[in-house]
């Protein structure tokens, strides 16, 4: 296997990114990123969904059960790829959701700033081939595309999501789905299905340098399971009937399984989210429909797992598997913004405007728009509270599996607190690539704030962070805020279903966030509030506007982007025409009087 690995020497041209002087064998790295995958959506974390290839990875490595990311996608991707807090990386929120008043700040553009360096750039500089196939969503201008941010070969989706069967936008705020290959606009093939296509491209990129002795870094940010939730029929068939008992039963079943698997403490309880409908009150027709929505969701996850298996098999076939490090995770928790009932007349009319259907028979197939409602999203995050966009554990805590080369432990589950900003420094450590200092390529950069967690990949659990002030990890998204310190977490949700109150939880014994400790431990609460205030200052967090609403802001920004010039032209036209109309009516009135 050594012959297939790079024996890399410091004579390779380097800048400030690298630099061991001795000969070392550096692993290939495959970074697999699911989209909107809930905490218990894969089998190693308690899911009923069959994910044998992810299970195999978990058995061949370490599963992190206390890993936290951002509450929505682009901030998570920015932190994942840079190790820098989302605010300092220029992506405190997705651009579609940033109100104009915040967009005046340079670091609130929702695109990856030029004062952060991606792990791809660092690895490329250190002699790696770097590939990316999947959703980017960190900027679409030429200097912001992945081909300009350290990736040698790319096929990338620019928006927050897109159809999985064809090149088509999934929301009316987009006029098209922009795909790019190596920095140029790209037309998807006719036989496109997202997970299959992205793995095919990854394999193609890897094989294009099969003769090279350089290792590779492959970043595969899947579209699965972002809406529209779509999957091939053969995978859907596997899950029909599985969800007929509804979301309450599923949430409880996953809680039980997660405890059995030691994914969460046996003291764990789950709250009932106020957004969860009463399953028993639904009509039989609604139950049938909701069960299929979730079946398609499960099928999309199973399809992703199937294609991950194809990549693993390919690496085995070409002899690169043994020297490859695999990292699998999700950008944020499960997506709750799907329509509660997508079969209403209004929903159907809106979908038909985009040439989508919510027809039961075709659900998940080409031309169909599917999602899960907040009720099944809560089950997907079981046993955690909340989901995507919120800073409850269901929005932030997701699976993380690290396996393969460099991972001594096999089948280990660790509840060591870890964070999305830890991934980049960990990859750098495992690839023997030096972290950049405060300058890179002659320009000042934001230093990495995440920590190397590679020491947790042995059989000995090691805390990466203690309980000192400098160990605190803060987070903010559109006013919703959290701070982690030791086993504790403070949480603020500014709007419903939150209540604008800071709460304190021990997330080690109560990951479901059922028992607010703020009145029991007021000193700890105050200390953590002070640390959060410092986090806001250090990371230049801007206050959110009054009455901010995520969904409404997306619509407003989308209308501005797509229809702004037309609206302005209409208003100007009215200003020109109305005086003529007033004069005309006045004359008519005068004539009538005469």
């Amino acid at each position, binding site marked *: 296997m050594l012959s297939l690995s790079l024996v890399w020497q410091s004579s390779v041209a380097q800048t400030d990114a690298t630099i061991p002087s001795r000969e070392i064998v550096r692993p290939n790295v495959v970074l697999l990123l699911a989209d909107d995958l809930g905490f218990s959506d894969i089998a190693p974390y308690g899911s009923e969904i069959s994910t044998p290839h992810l299970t195999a990875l978990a058995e061949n490595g370490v599963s992190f059960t206390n890993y936290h990311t951002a509450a929505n996608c682009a901030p998570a991707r920015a932190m994942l790829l840079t190790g820098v807090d989302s605010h300092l990386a220029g992506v405190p929120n997705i651009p579609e959701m940033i109100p*104009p008043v915040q*967009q*005046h700040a340079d670091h609130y553009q929702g695109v990856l700033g030029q004062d952060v360096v991606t792990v791809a750039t660092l690895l490329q500089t250190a002699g790696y081939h770097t590939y990316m196939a999947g959703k980017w969503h960190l900027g679409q201008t030429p200097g912001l595309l992945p081909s300009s941010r350290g990736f040698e070969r790319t096929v990338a989706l620019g928006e927050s999501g897109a159809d999985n069967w064809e090149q088509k936008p999934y929301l009316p705020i987009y006029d098209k789905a922009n795909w790019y290959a190596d920095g140029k606009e790209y037309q998807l093939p006719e036989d496109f299905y997202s997970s299959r296509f992205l793995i095919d491209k990854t394999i193609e990129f890897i094989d294009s340098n099969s003769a090279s002795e350089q290792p590779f870094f492959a970043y595969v940010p899947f579209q699965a399971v972002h809406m529209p939730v779509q999957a091939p029929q053969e995978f859907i068939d596997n899950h029909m009937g599985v969800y007929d008992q509804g979301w309450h039963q599923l949430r409880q079943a996953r809680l039980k399984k997660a405890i059995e698997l030691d994914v969460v403490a046996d003291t764990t309880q789950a709250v009932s989210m106020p957004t969860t409908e009463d399953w028993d009150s639904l009509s039989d027709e609604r139950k049938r429909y909701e069960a299929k929505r979730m079946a398609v969701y499960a099928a999309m996850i199973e399809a992703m797992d199937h294609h991950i298996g194809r990549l693993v098999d390919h690496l085995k076939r070409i002899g690169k598997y043994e020297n490859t490090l695999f990292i699998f995770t999700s950008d944020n928790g499960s997506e709750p913004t799907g329509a509660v009932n997508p079969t209403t007349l209004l929903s159907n009319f809106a979908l038909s405007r985009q040439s989508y259907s919510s027809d039961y028979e075709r659900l998940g197939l080409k031309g169909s728009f599917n999602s899960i409602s907040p009720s099944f999203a809560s089950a997907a995050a079981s046993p955690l509270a909340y989901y995507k966009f919120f800073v409850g554990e269901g929005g932030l805590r997701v699976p993380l599996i690290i396996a393969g080369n460099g991972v001594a432990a096999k089948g280990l589950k660790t509840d060591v607190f870890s964070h999305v900003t830890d991934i980049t420094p960990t990859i750098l450590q495992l690839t023997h690539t030096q972290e950049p200092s405060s300058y890179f390529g002659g320009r000042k950069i934001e230093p990495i704030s995440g920590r190397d967690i590679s020491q947790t990949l042995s059989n000995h659990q090691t805390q990466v962070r203690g309980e000192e002030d400098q160990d605190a990890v803060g987070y903010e998204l559109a006013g919703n805020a959290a701070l982690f310190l030791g086993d504790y977490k403070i949480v603020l949700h500014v709007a419903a279903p939150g209540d604008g109150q800071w709460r304190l939880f021990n997330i080690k014994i109560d990951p479901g966030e059922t028992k607010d400790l703020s009145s029991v431990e007021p000193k700890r609460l105050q200390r953590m509030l002070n640390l959060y205030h410092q986090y806001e200052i250090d990371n230049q967090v801007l206050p959110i506007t009054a009455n901010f609403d995520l969904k409404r802001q997306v619509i407003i920004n989308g209308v501005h982007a797509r229809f702004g010039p037309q609206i302005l032209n209409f208003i100007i036209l009215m200003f020109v025409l109305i005086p003529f109309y007033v004069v005309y009516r006045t004359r008519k009135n005068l004539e009538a009087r005469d």
Partner: protein
Amino acid sequence: MNRLLRIIVVIPAIIFVMTGIGYILDPANTAAQFGMPLLEGLGRSSQIGTLAAFFFTAGFCVLLATTTGKRFWYYPAAMLTGLTATFRVIAWLVHDATLATDQILPEVIFTFLFLYAATRLKEKD
């Protein structure tokens, strides 16, 4: 019917006048309701002067229309509310202001209400 309509249009008129008084007696809190801080110096003078005049004018015009029965008094009020809504949209489109839907919607409703009242009163006269 016209009596009911007069009562309905008087409600926003009273709100306008009260807001105008608010700008004179308690400008800080009144400005805060519109997402503004109370400015200093010349800015405060312009802020209180123009906004108090705006709301008094809108309110008094409607009150004049309903008490005198002269429909044309509705038009300045309709122009003020209608143009405010329009310029809010332009501010959003061109100057990165917040799209103040919570304010625009009532302004549009008031505009159409005043125009409708003007039409109805014309029939009476």
